[in-house]
Structure formats: structure tokens, C-alpha cells
């Protein structure tokens, strides 16, 4: 594991990503690297926000942690065990402990299965047997996420988007996990519903002592929920810092541009120069910083090597040449 991201606090680490890479080979077009050497650690009980634009690889990373996709290189450790070497009972145990909530709750629920059954599947896997006990647990879970037991009888198309996302949460909680990957859980919802789900997530975390990986492109939401934030750009972790520090003092030019351009942070009094738009990707012959074409203040060194994460201030890592 790289020195730069080794945990320095006393909290135990729950998830450790060591040098994760993922290459895709789509048919009929050239292969591309969705993730390049991503290393980070998630501490028990924290909410780690992962920020990036579409195509930055943030969802792929979430899937790799859950062993829903396999990396081309690198290792994932959960509770100190290599996730991709788990077999049989150990794998099942991992599945119970690590759960997921997706962006589009409509797609995340089997359209031909009653929502109660969907939750019950997880309850059964969580080790509760007997119809009575299972039903009680399903009702309890539904109430926990702010639904009524009567909702269990409905099919997904009979519920609204916000209600469906609550069902997805209930399902994710059904095997009593300790870690949740939240993959843009509110971006398909309306603003007024989004806040309800976010509040619910905060409450659940507090009550159940969960650890979250919160993936989002919405900086405002990440800012509010996260303890620490990682910024992904074209498959690379370019900045990693405690949330407050990152939003107060972003170090990477990409993070700065992202903050400046996000409407929530838009400040009419401050004129921001927009970085030029690339009209097509030029083919690269030698390694260079992926952000170089858009960077406001590029250095000569950026053209010859890919910058690595280094600790700029305690706990604040950035992958950019230090300005001399």
C-alpha cells in the first residue's frame, strides 16, 4: 500500500483499496482505463464522499468495492480480508455486511416482484427464518425508512420515486450491514424529495453506526454529508481531504474549477474564466497529467509525468505538481 494514503488516525479501517485499476474493452472501439491506480482507505463510521463527473469512474469504483465488477489490477480489503479471494460462507458474510443503493430506484427494483418480497429476500439471507419473524422484520424495516407496512404488498410501479428509494434503503438494510455504497442515491429525485432522503441517510447512519461511501456529482450534497472527500478525474484520484478543508481550500485546479462552476457555489460577484473546451481527444504518445489540456496554470513538468498523490497538509492529499 502506498505511503500517501496509509491511515494516520486511530480509527480502524473498514475498506482499503490498494492500487485499483480497471480497463474496459468495448467492442468496436479502443479500450480505455476507467480507473488508474486508485488507493484509499475508509474508516469505520465515517462517510466518505466520492466526487466526479460522469465517466470519471466513480460508479465503477463503488461496484469494485462490492465485488460486482472485478478490477484489472489491485486489491480490495474489507475488514482486513481480500474481498476477491473470499469464497463460500465468508463471501456470503461479506455480502451481508456490505450493501448498495443505486441512483435510479425504479431500475434497482425488480418490476415483477412486490417490494415486500424484495426486502424479505435480504431478511432471509440475514439469517431470520420463519414467515412470522420475517414479516415482522420487513414491517420494522419499512417503518424504519419512513414507509408503512402496507406498502409491502405493492409493486414498484405503484410507488413514487422517493418511496422507491426508501424501499431500496430498507432492502439494503435488511441483512443488517455495516457498510453502504450510496451510488448517487438522490440525483434522480426532485429537490424537495432529495432532502428527505438525505435526512433519512443521516439518521440511519447515526442509529445503526453505518459507514458510507457516498458517490455523487453534486458537490453541495457531498459537502453536507461527508467527513472526507475524494475527487476523481478521468479515473484518477486527484485530491483527497477532510470535507471542510477541501471546500475551503481546494488544491487541485480541477477541484477548483469544479467548485467554481457548480451552480450551488456560483458566486455572481466572482468572475470565473472558463477553461477551454476540448473538441476531441488527441492521442497521447507519452504520459502526461490528464488535466493538462484544461489546466489554468500548467507547468513544464506536467507534460512529462503523471503527478502522484502527496500530502500537502495533514490529511489533505493532492495529485498536482507543487507550485514552486
Amino acid at each position, binding site marked *: 500500500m502506498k505511503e500517501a494514503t496509509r491511515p494516520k488516525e486511530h480509527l480502524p479501517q473498514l475498506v482499503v483499496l490498494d492500487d485499483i485499476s480497471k480497463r474496459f474493452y468495448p467492442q468496436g472501439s479502443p479500450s480505455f482505463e476507467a480507473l488508474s491506480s486508485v488507493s484509499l482507505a475508509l474508516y469505520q463510521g465515517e462517510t466518505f464522499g466520492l466526487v466526479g463527473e460522469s465517466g470519471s469512474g466513480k460508479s465503477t469504483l463503488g461496484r469494485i468495492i462490492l465485488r460486482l465488477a472485478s478490477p484489472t489490477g489491485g486489491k480490495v480489503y474489507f475488514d482486513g480480508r481480500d474481498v476477491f479471494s473470499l469464497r463460500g460462507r465468508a463471501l456470503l458474510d461479506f455480502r451481508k455486511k456490505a450493501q448498495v443503493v443505486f441512483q435510479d430506484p425504479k*431500475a434497482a427494483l425488480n418490476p415483477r416482484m412486490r417490494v415486500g418480497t424484495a426486502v424479505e429476500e435480504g431478511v432471509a439471507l440475514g439469517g431470520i427464518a420463519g414467515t412470522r419473524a420475517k414479516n415482522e422484520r420487513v414491517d420494522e424495516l419499512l417503518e424504519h425508512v419512513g414507509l408503512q407496512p402496507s406498502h409491502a404488498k405493492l409493486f414498484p410501479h405503484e410507488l413514487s420515486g422517493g418511496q422507491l428509494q426508501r424501499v431500496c434503503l430498507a432492502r439494503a438494510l435488511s441483512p443488517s450491514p455495516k457498510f453502504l455504497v450510496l451510488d448517487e442515491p438522490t440525483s434522480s429525485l426532485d429537490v424537495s424529495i432529495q432532502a428527505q432522503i438525505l435526512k433519512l441517510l443521516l439518521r440511519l447512519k447515526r442509529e445503526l453506526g453505518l459507514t458510507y461511501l457516498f458517490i455523487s456529482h453534486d458537490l453541495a450534497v457531498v459537502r453536507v454529508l461527508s467527513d472526507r472527500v475524494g475527487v476523481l478525474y478521468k479515473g484518477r484520484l486527484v485530491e483527497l481531504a477532510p470535507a471542510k478543508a477541501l471546500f475551503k481550500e481546494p488544491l487541485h485546479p480541477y477541484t477548483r474549477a469544479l467548485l467554481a*462552476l457548480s451552480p450551488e457555489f456560483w458566486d455572481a460577484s466572482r468572475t470565473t474564466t472558463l477553461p477551454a473546451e476540448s473538441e476531441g481527444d488527441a492521442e497521447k504518445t507519452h504520459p502526461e497529467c490528464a488535466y493538462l489540456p484544461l489546466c489554468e496554470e500548467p507547468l513544464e513538468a506536467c507534460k512529462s509525468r503523471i503527478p502522484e498523490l502527496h500530502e500537502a497538509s495533514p490529511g489533505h492529499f493532492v495529485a498536482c505538481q507543487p507550485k514552486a
Partner: protein
Amino acid sequence: MAGSRPLKSSPLLLTSLLFLIGILTLAMLGPWLSPFSPYEIDLTQTNLPPGLAHPFGTDALGRDLFVRAWGGARISLFVGFAAALIDLGLGLMLGGLAGYIGGKWDTAFMRSVEVLYGIPYIMVVLLLAVILGPGVFSLIVGMTLTGWIPMARLVRGEVFRAKEEDFVLAATAMGQGPFRILLWHILPNVMSPVLVALTLTIPQAVFLEAFLAFIGLGVPLPRASLGTLITEGARESWYYPWQLFIPATILCSTLLAFNTLGDTLRDMLDPKRGEPAPRPLVRGSVNIPEIPPEKTLGAPLLTLEQACVRFLTPRGELPAIREVSLTLQPGEMLALVGESGSGKSTLGRSIVGLLPKKGSLVSGKCLFMGQELRLPRLGPLDQLGKPKLAMVFQNPLGSLNPTMQAGKQVAEALVSARMLSWAAAKDEALHLFKEVGIQNQRRCFFAYPHELSGGMRQRVVFAVMLALSPSLLIADEPTTALDVATQARILALLTKLKTTRGLGVLFITHNLALAKGWADRVSVLYAGEIVEEGPSRRLFQDPRHPYTKGLLDSIPKLDADNPDNALFALPGSPPDPYTLHKGCAFAPRCPVARPYCKDEPAPWVTLEDGHRARCFAVKEALLL
């Protein structure tokens, strides 16, 4: 989904199903309904016309055609069902496994299947019939030898797609076993297209059997399928037409019923069904007269008064827009803000005249450049020569014709709207590309839309619209499909065009922050009604309507020290539009609702600077 609903809603489905059940019953029972044997030759009774004793008449050997016809139908249908079911079984098993396992096995499977798939199906059946000799067995073997391949490819494709669905991933993450996932989560969701394919495979096999019978490779005598009977009847059809007519009718109507059943099922199971397709070639002109410049001076560009749009749906009347009034000045950007289902897109489309013709009821008044546009504005815009309205949609890739070069799409608009020659239009198109901020205009001119990036595509769409030299641009979520940096660039472009061209912009968005950052004025839409409007800065600094307040509070606050304080959640969810009552639609969720809010329409309260809100509470607060 409820099982009985599709039957009730489609008379065609019901009819074809009942008809097929009838044919099947007769094919099963027919031979017992008549005292004659299909093979019994009676040379005293040859070529009788249909009558009481022989309902379908007799053939040249005096055999009763009624029993022979239904016996023939039984053989034909048996071949059809047997072939289709074997195809289904093999297709589900092999296609399902290949799709589910994936990887190298799948590739190997697909490659070998591709080789077999190239052999024309009918030639395989012919070869088999020649090699094994004609017969039911060789027919079915021939039909299924490669017949399962299309089914397997279909199943494989569907399983492949379903495997990547979030709900299957969620089940995997849950630790469900592969068999349970395949059986409970994947297969039920791939069965619809498979069912349709099955329904269409049966008639194909019946058809093929008849075809083979006609060229002498059908079921051997003395047994006779419908194809055999038709072939026999064809010989004497001049003298005894019923010998051809009856079996031919049974065959054709059965095939028709199967095909209709398949088609209806496919339409019904099509996820895109229900979206009404707007009709294109309806001639209905909207006259947008040339207006002398002095007349438009100072007058608003667009005025809507009491605009209402209702859709007729199977559930009843859906009020999408309820009495919306607004004005837009030249050179002004008005943001129409609302959540999904608030009717903001419908409003934009109704102004440009893009609502589906069927089932839309439009009323109210729409003044554009001082002239009344008749609502309902349906059918295409007859903008020839004087286009003043333009619209940009959310998805730039979908807004451009995929098979036409980007530049040509701009030039085409110039030719049609400004009567330019193609050569002049090309030059002008390059200028427009420059105006919308495209660096390499020539390259972009010859590129197809899919070759451009998302931001570039949206710029091309803007160029297309500017080709119309519009006075009003309706931008329906123009940046929602783009990332933040491109979003900011596109909005900067929109602002630039607004100033340089004096363009009125109706900016439709769900994003309050965007409206706050870019719009001059804002109208907040809730359940098809405007609840508050005013200058952007004033409205966001001092929101009055409880809905606007709640919406603004729902945006996470960045300066709060405690995450719980950073979030305010508006309770409840938007109302069901079918059950709206006379009063304020927001009343059930409103923290300051009065008892009478639900029953009486809320009054408009005018504040300063054109800031207005529609609320009892605001009015009462003002009176205090």
C-alpha cells in the same frame, strides 16, 4: 402487472386468442364430430360439394373433407407447436446460459452460432426433408436444427441486458445464489419478448410445412396436413373450388390470428407504448405576421394569459398546465423552475406547438410579438420565411438527425427559413458555428452528431436554432445532460446570445441554483400553476411562497456546522394531478396552511418590483 387488464383493453388480442382457441378445439375434436374416417375411400361419393352429410364436401376419392381438413389442421398445428416449443426450450437453455455465464464461453457460443445462423433456415429444412425423406419427424428436426438460434440469440441478448440491471446487481450484492437470481430476477423480466417470438414462430413453422407440402416434401400420404389438402385442392380448383378454398381459408386465418396475436402482444409489451407520437404532416398554419419594428418596441415578446393544457389519458383528464400567465421581454431570460411533473416542459412545448395532437386540450391566450398565436397550436410550425420561435431540448444527441452532417442541418434551416442558396447557407452556417463558440468550424460542419462531444452537440443545436433568426428561444433543460463545466459554458453562451441578439429566453429547469445564477426573472411552477414569480435576485433573497421557501431550504446549506442543520426537508410529495381540487395544490404539504387553503383558490399578492406570490399566508402577512 395485472393479468386481465391487457385482455380487456385490446379487442384484437381477445379476438385472435378466442379464434385460435376455436381452431385448436376443432382440430382436436373435429375428427370425432363426423362419422367418416379421413382415409376411407368411397368412389360413389366423389367431389361432392359442401352439404349436410359432408359439411366441407368430399375429394376426388370420395373422402370426407371435414375430417380431413381438421385432421390436417391438427397435423399442421402439431408441427408448428412442436417446432416452436423445441426452439423455445433450446433457446432458453443455451441462450440463457451463454448470456448468464458470459465471458469466453459466451464468445465461443456466439461465434459458432453465427456460422450456423448464416445458413438460410428454409434450406436446412429442405435439405433435411430430402435426406431423411418427407415426414413429420424430419420436418420438426429440420425446423429445429437451426430454428432455435434466433430464439437463443434473443434470450442471450435479453439476459445480457437484464444481468446488468441494477436490481440484479442489488440481488448479487445481497448474496443471492446464481440460480435464484436467474430464476427470480432475470427470467421473469426477459419473458415478454420471448413470448412474442414464440407466438410468431408457430405460424412460421405452419407456413413452412404448407410450403414444403406444396413442393412435394410435406407429410407423406395417406396422412394429410393443410398444406397437402391445399395442394390436392389446387389441382381441381377450377371445377371444385371449395376443395382449395376451405383448407386455404383455415390455414390463412390461423396464420393471421397468430401473427395478430404476436403483433398485439409486442405492442402491448413495448415499453415505449403509451407515449403518443406527434403527427407530422398535418397542414395547419400558424400565421406569424411580420411586425413593423416600432410596434414591438416596449411591448413584451411573449405573453401567456390563462393558458391551460389538459391531456386526455386512460385514467381521465390530466391537467398539466392550470391557468398560467406570464410575460417575457426581449433580451430577458425567464427561468421556469419546477420539479418533475410540474408541467414546465409541457408549457414550453405548447408555445412552440409540439404537443401531441391526440388528447391535448389547450385553452388560453398566447401573444407573441403583439400578435395572437392561436392555442391550441398543433401540427407543425408553418414558419416558412418568418420563423421567430426556436426551441432547444435537453438531450443534444437526440435533437440532431443522426444521419445528417451537423453543418448540413444548420444550412438546411438557413435555406428553408432565410431562402438562402446552399452555397450561401454553408458560409452562413460556418459563421453561426463561430458565433456559438465552435473553434474548428469546418471540421464540425462535416461531422456527424455522434462524432461530437456533448457540449459541441448542444452548440450545434444552438446554431441550428439561430439559423432561424428567432426572437424567442425556449431552452428546455438545455444543460441537464451535460457535466458542470460544459453546463456553465453553455449557459454563458446563452447569456451572450441574449445580450448580443436581444433574444428572449425561456429557460426551463429543475435546478434552482442555475436559475439563481443565470436568469433575470424566475417563475416557480408547482403542479401546473405558477406560485411565485419575480426578479431573480429578489425572489431568491426574499422568497415568499411557502413552496419556494421550502424548495430553497431543501438545497443543502454549505455554511452550517452540523449536517442536520444544513438540511431542511419539505414533507410529503407532489400531489397526484388527477385529484387536484380548487384550492392551493401545495396546501397538504404547507407548514403554514390555513384550513380554507384547500378549498379556495389562493389570491395573487403583488409585492415590489414585479415580485408576486399566490398565497393566503402571504396576503395575511402583508395585511398585518
